[in-house]
């Protein structure tokens, strides 16, 4: 690439082409162009590259195939409808059998909990309060578990 004169860099010229130089510098360079063929040539080259690229893209005559776009558009609509339907059904959206099985399992476990002898989740059963003391400053409770006879002391400041 032919270099511009020593007064300006090729980046200055590039910014000049885009009207991005500070106003003072822009006007000084514009004046300078009257007697500097090197800078003038570079400006012409920079401008012509953009113009040719622009014209080349214009000449491509690109146009979207309406039928193809419509097909994609319809698929997108169908997918969004399907998605909103899934949201409406929420939990039952996809694998309904798996979800029914889960509900049945939860019901069965609940029945065991409330109808059985209470062994399912708490083998030790409910605890008993052996002694409790309340004062103005604190409360103390002595609790004993039923089967293992473990003692729990609970203290709380009032």
């Amino acid at each position, binding site marked *: 690439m032919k270099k511009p004169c020593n007064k300006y860099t090729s980046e200055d010229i590039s910014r000049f082409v885009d009207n991005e130089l500070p106003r003072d510098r822009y006007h000084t360079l514009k004046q300078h162009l009257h007697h500097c063929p090197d800078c003038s040539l570079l400006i012409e080259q920079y401008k012509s590259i953009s113009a040719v690229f*622009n014209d080349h893209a214009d*000449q491509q005559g690109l146009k979207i195939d309406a039928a193809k776009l419509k097909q994609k*558009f319809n698929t997108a609509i169908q997918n*969004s409808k399907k998605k909103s339907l899934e949201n409406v059904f929420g939990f039952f959206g996809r694998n309904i059998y798996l979800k029914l099985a889960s509900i049945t399992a939860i019901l069965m476990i609940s029945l065991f909990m409330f109808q059985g002898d209470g062994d399912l989740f708490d083998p030790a059963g409910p605890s008993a309060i052996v002694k409790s003391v309340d004062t103005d400053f604190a409360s103390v409770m002595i609790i004993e578990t039923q089967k293992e006879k473990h003692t729990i002391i609970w203290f709380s400041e009032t």
Partner: protein
Amino acid sequence: MNKPEANADIDIDEQDLVERLKKGQQWAFNVLVNRYQGRLLKIAYGITLDHEDSLEVVQDVFISVFKNIQTFRQDASLATWLRKITINQCLNWKRRWKRRFKWSHESIESENDKTLFEENKKKNDPETLYKGKQFEKNIMQAIKTLPEKIRVVFVLNAFEGLSYEEISKTLNIKKGTVSSRLHFARKNLINSLELND
């Protein structure tokens, strides 16, 4: 409400168009496509440098707009939003397909160029036209060698005429970076052209 012809050049302002798009009116979508496809296709072509890729990309842009129009807050113009989506789609597209390495197998003289040449031959001096076409081919070949991030900046400058400030906002880069990338693009293109001479 009257339903205008899908292909008609409908005089509807942007605000109205966006509202109708948000309501899911399909004819508004057709208006959007008719109004913006040319501009977006040109940007996509500038970045991908491929007919088919640019068509696919812009189709995807419109589908993406249809899906996400509710998220468009209108703090920028519709054109700005569409431009941003197109650039992102192009860059993602390139990432997806970069292994294809198709450009190395591409003929420099496409069918379109041939037709264009044939059409203009009668009107213009053949030698001048040939030189012009050769210059264009050389430029396009040189543009293909530019790194993608440089080419995007060059496209926004050359096609959309955006200022450095606008390019920096669109691509989330500094103004100084815009300036240096444009300078890099121009310097490299001229160097490549001189090598071809």
